[in-house]
């Protein structure tokens, strides 16, 4: 009972929030908080009902552990971000519609994970796509929304083709039954595997479909970027899970060529995942816009998640599932922190900021913890999950993947440090002297997320327990825990010990910091010159061209974005050609084509 109420409630809530917004904008924003928190509560209450089935209208639903887990992640991100909504009401062009679409897309995501049949899955998938498509352009870019929509829809249409093909083959749309005939037909399974997973790849932002992430995440309204990056991207992981877990890919590809023991079909996608990790990391390092930077880091993290899911094993899969959660809350927290900065200063450009720690320490702390987790540095949650993924990769002997994963981890130090140093540390610009700290309502979700990141980094047991159930349901060996230790083939990770060590190190550092002489604050404009007046002090901001020497190494890289844009331009030209060839105000043109068609058809027809 809980879950059908949950889904219906979200759609009703969307309408309610819209109506309330008509009366009072702030109240409408608070309604989104109430409803999304309500969803979180209902989800937690309904954990006992896993396995139940229900129907709404013509759509069938089934509550599974993995569905429950995914929707938990999603609702958490939505609920935390919802606290921010009320501060943007006066900045949005359509605040009421924003509230409506916010809850509407939430309802869509929740329904998606509980779908029992493929059509229901697709319906909710598309609901999320179009409702989020209309939120994105309320931010800074209209083009971003179109790119986002186009890439998403390329994926979802491919998946729809796969769904229809599955129905044709198996005669059913039921998720469990539809994939059943593929087990014994590797060719068909290969086709379906690649077509069906497309929606997942586009949504996660796997190379070459990653171009929408920086555009959409970077320019969406500040309150929606956390949801896009933390939440919606994870829908793709669900599709990826279905393609390997439910298909089941490993069983179907038993006879096919293998690379390092992995069927070549799956390995090919893993390579894409690895490319995404490298590419996302390198691009993130280059970014001057804090939001774009986190967006590219989402590309890299999407690569980790995809590789882990594709591996379908004891460790990497568990790591991937956990990383999904860790990345969701960490990237949401990071985006929220940036949103606070943007709320107070009105910009997200790294080179225009600096010294925010002096004005908003809690925000700084949130950002610090989130970004440490994103980079996979202990003792945060991100470390545990990345450790598990790398363990899994090493266990399978997948050297290239492991290499990419290590590269991503090291590269992430670089991109993590850039906004940290340039936005929060360093000198405060004079115009930011009077900034206030984050408002109370913003502090609540940031604190919660911060605690969660830290908590699950130290005590990942609860989450790994759920993941173990998911693994059992998917028919693979569950991840093993012993006390606070995670047992892997190549070693044991005791997260509590790690925390102790880091905590001890932190304490020592704190003591040193306290005892040593304080540094002197230097104003941003106190720049040395040879008695010359400086007209462009911002160029001397150390946040500008932060990694210039490093970036120069790959400045002239080939870009898939250029290729896709060229493709789009070719489409445009083809359209113009159609227009010029066939459409004229002169009847002769059309008469000519009629004659040609008659000639062509009769030419073949007379002989037949």
């Amino acid at each position, binding site marked *: 009972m809980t879950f059908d109420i949950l889904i219906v409630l979200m759609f009703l809530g969307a309408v309610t929030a819209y109506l309330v917004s008509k009366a009072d904008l702030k109240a409408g924003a608070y309604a989104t908080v109430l409803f999304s928190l309500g969803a979180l509560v209902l989800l937690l209450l309904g954990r006992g009902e896993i396995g139940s089935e229900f129907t709404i209208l013509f759509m069938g639903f089934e509550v599974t552990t993995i569905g429950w887990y995914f929707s938990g992640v999603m609702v958490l991100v939505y609920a935390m971000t919802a606290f921010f909504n009320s501060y943007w009401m006066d900045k949005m062009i359509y605040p009421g519609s924003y509230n409506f679409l916010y809850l509407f897309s939430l309802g869509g995501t929740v329904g998606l994970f509980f779908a029992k049949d493929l059509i229901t899955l697709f319906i909710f998938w598309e609901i999320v796509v179009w409702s989020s498509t209309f939120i994105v352009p309320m931010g800074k870019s209209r083009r971003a929304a179109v790119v986002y929509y186009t890439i998403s829809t390329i994926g979802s249409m491919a998946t729809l083709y796969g769904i229809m093909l599955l129905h044709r083959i198996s005669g059913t749309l039921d998720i469990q039954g539809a994939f059943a005939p593929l087990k014994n037909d590797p060719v068909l399974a290969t086709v379906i595997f690649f077509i069906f997973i497309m929606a997942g790849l586009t949504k996660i932002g796997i190379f070459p479909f990653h171009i929408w992430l920086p555009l959409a995440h970077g320019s969406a309204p500040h309150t929606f970027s956390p949801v896009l990056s933390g939440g919606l991207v994870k829908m793709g992981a669900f599709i990826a899970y279905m393609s390997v877990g439910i298909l089941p890919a490993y069983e179907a590809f038993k006879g096919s060529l293998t690379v390092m023991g992995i069927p070549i079909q799956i390995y090919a996608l893993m390579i894409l995942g690895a490319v995404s990790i490298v590419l996302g990391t390198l691009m993130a390092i280059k970014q001057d816009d804090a939001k774009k930077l986190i967006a590219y880091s989402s590309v890299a993290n999407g690569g980790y998640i995809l590789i882990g899911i594709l591996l379908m094993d004891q460790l990497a899969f568990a790591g991937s599932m956990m990383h999904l959660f860790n990345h969701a809350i960490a990237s949401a927290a990071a985006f929220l922190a940036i949103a606070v900065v943007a709320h107070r200063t009105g910009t997200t450009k790294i080179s225009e900021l600096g010294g925010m720690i002096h004005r908003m320490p809690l925000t700084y702390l949130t950002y610090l913890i989130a970004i440490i987790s994103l980079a996979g540095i202990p003792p945060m949650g991100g470390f545990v999950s990345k450790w598990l993924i790398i363990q899994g990769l090493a266990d399978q002997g997948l050297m290239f993947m492991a290499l990419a994963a290590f590269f991503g981890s090291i590269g992430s130090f670089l991109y993590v440090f850039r906004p940290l140093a340039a936005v929060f540390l360093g000198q405060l610009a004079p115009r930011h002297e009077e900034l206030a700290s984050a408002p109370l309502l913003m502090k609540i979700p940031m604190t919660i997320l911060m605690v969660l990141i830290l908590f699950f980094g130290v005590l990942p047991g609860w989450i790994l327990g759920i993941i173990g159930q998911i693994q059992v349901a998917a028919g693979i060996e569950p991840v093993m825990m012993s006390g606070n230790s995670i047992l892997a083939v190549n070693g044991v990770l005791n997260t509590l010990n790690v925390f102790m060590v880091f905590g001890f190190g932190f304490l020592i550092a704190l003591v040193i910091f306290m005892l040593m002489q304080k540094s002197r604050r230097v104003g941003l404009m106190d720049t040395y010159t040879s008695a010359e007046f400086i007209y462009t002090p911002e160029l001397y901001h150390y946040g500008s061209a932060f990694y210039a020497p490093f970036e120069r190494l790959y400045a002239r890289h080939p870009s898939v974005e250029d290729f896709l844009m060229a493709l789009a331009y070719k489409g445009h030209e083809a359209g113009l050609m159609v227009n010029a060839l066939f459409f004229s105000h002169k009847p002769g043109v059309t008469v000519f084509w009629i004659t040609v068609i*008659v000639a062509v058809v009769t030419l073949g027809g*007379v002989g037949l």
Partner: protein
Amino acid sequence: MKKALAMLLLVLVGTLLFMGIYAMEGFRPYGEVDLAQRVSQAYIDKDVTGENPEVVYGISKDLETGSANLVTSIIVNYRSFDTLGEVTVLFLSALGVSILFGSFKGRLRSRYQPNFILRTGSKVVFPLILIMGVYIFIHGHLSPGGGFPGGSMIASAILLMYLADEAFRIRIEGFKMTEGIAGSLYVLLGLVGLTLAGYFLSNFLNTGTVGALFSAGIIPVVYVLVGLKVGSELTGIITDFLKGEVE
């Protein structure tokens, strides 16, 4: 160049069409058609049920259609609905022309003055053409012709007057009135048939003896209406075309 290309293309299409059409096995060579294979035999026998004996001119009575002119029987009885559509097409094009030129005033002036013979002769011929036109549509069920040729003749008489007299103007309202009333009556006639016989446009009057003037049921009635309507519509088109360019 363009013309040569067009010529080449059409020679190709023409050859292919010729070959294609005459290769169709059911397409009989010119003149070697068997009407029994077509629906037309029933029209000649004036009997779609295939029961009645041979039709004889001046003797056979009360057939399903009483028109001696077989084409007329098709136009006004068997395929009367087409004719209603046809009338509508003409109505529409007259309407379209009057919408396009409706706001124009005055009359176009010809570059030449009508000569004496035309001016005098037209006055003599005008009533004759009118009478001929009326004759043709009244006898449409007996002899070649019918409402459309008859109506065109009436319109040609008016055109003659336009040509003969620079100052000639007709009152278009009267013609519009005729057009509207004749059209409405045609539809109403169909509706009467629907009420009386159960079929729209059915021939509910006595069809009489084949060959008699007062025979063929509603055919003469319809043809009179069509004749008047076509006459007034074509007149309307002529009048609208001759309107001047001053808005």
